């Protein structure tokens, strides 16, 4: 019998990986992060409230796993480079197959600071509400709004939206 929870998890894998890539910008680390997220989700299955959107729950697990991962890396003295590195960002997108505007938008997203980028991905890519994003990132809704409006204003300037 198909397991609905597994199906829902599997359907969200590309979204999880995209969010993971936006956080750590390394394909290998992003894969590890997605795997850890799935492991944790399977263990914590009973704590998932089916009334809420599963992606919000999964993104929160992923974000917390990422925090754990960076903390461990820092302890080991090999701090991960989560600073600006736009050239790594859009490398998975094939510019030849991507419409020009999409390519512009994606590369503009990559230039945003992490704290703006993660909000933008959750709200504008994943279409979560401000409240859901606030819960996932563990910041007040007002912070979500100020980061998001700065991110959107910056994107607009970069891709020429007036």
């Amino acid at each position, binding site marked *: 019998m198909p*397991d609905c929870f597994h199906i829902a998890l599997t359907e969200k894998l*590309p979204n999880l990986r995209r969010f993971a890539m936006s956080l750590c910008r390394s394909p290998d680390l992003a894969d590890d992060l997605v*795997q850890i997220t*799935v492991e944790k989700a*399977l263990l914590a299955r009973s704590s998932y409230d089916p009334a809420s959107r599963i992606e919000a729950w999964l993104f929160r697990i992923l974000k917390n796993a990422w925090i754990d991962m960076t903390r461990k890396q820092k302890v080991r003295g090999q701090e991960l480079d989560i600073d600006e590195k736009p050239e790594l960002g859009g490398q998975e997108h094939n510019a030849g197959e991507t419409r020009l505007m999409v390519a512009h938008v994606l590369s503009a997203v990559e230039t945003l600071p992490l704290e703006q980028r993660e909000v933008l991905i959750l709200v*504008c890519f994943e279409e979560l509400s*401000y409240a859901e994003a606030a819960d996932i990132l563990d910041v007040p809704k007002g912070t979500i*709004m100020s980061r998001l409006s700065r991110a*959107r204003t910056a994107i607009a300037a970069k891709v020429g939206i007036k």
Partner: protein
Amino acid sequence: MTDQTQMTDELIMAYADGELPEAEAKKVERAAETSEEVRDKIRMFKQTARELKGAAADLPPVPDQLADRISTLLAEDTGARDLPADGNVVPFARKAVFRQWPTALAASITLAIGLAVGMSAGPFGTPDTTSPFGIAALADPGIDRALSEVASGGSTSLDSGATLNVIASFVDADSTLCREFDYEAVNGPSIVSVACRVGQTWEPRIAIAASSEQSAVYAPASSLEALEAWLSSSGMGSPLELPEEKQRLDRIGSGT
């Protein structure tokens, strides 16, 4: 007159995104009637939302390797969840349900050895396990720690370079925690073993040595049945559920 100074970017954006309650949305609309700047910003935020949504449709697929890793996890989870909770169920019925044996391993088992309690097999990492039966692999000191930490279905790399996959946990007739695992050395045979927690260490109770992948020997499935038979004769009917296993491992971790 509408107080335009209150029209922050955040508020205008929330309006454009449909995130404002009606009363506040009305305020933004009133401000937009008189202010071109507010109208421009509403347009800008709506358009960024549209463009970003368009860009989001270009969702890169998950790499095959990751997809494989995840389906293995899910298959293991399915196996673990399908198990009857009732320990009185005929143990053979669960065969192959929860085990995710590497195919090459399952197909190439050449030797099964029971380690009787009290034989010279001591705890992992002690010298007296190194050679009597030619399963020196079980002397790897990393095994002991991994068995105390890794959840069933999980894998870990040991300092020796070997990989240890934990298959399942059981409680034997005396309520001793036992764990079934396979150990893949860098060179040499893979070992499937069951070890039980005695005092402060894990003692191997049974081991099945599998030859390396290129072996031409075809192993009948009965090799695994031998392990099943051994498990059930030791009172280890069905594996522990993961939450219960976690509790038991946490107790080991905290030394209680």
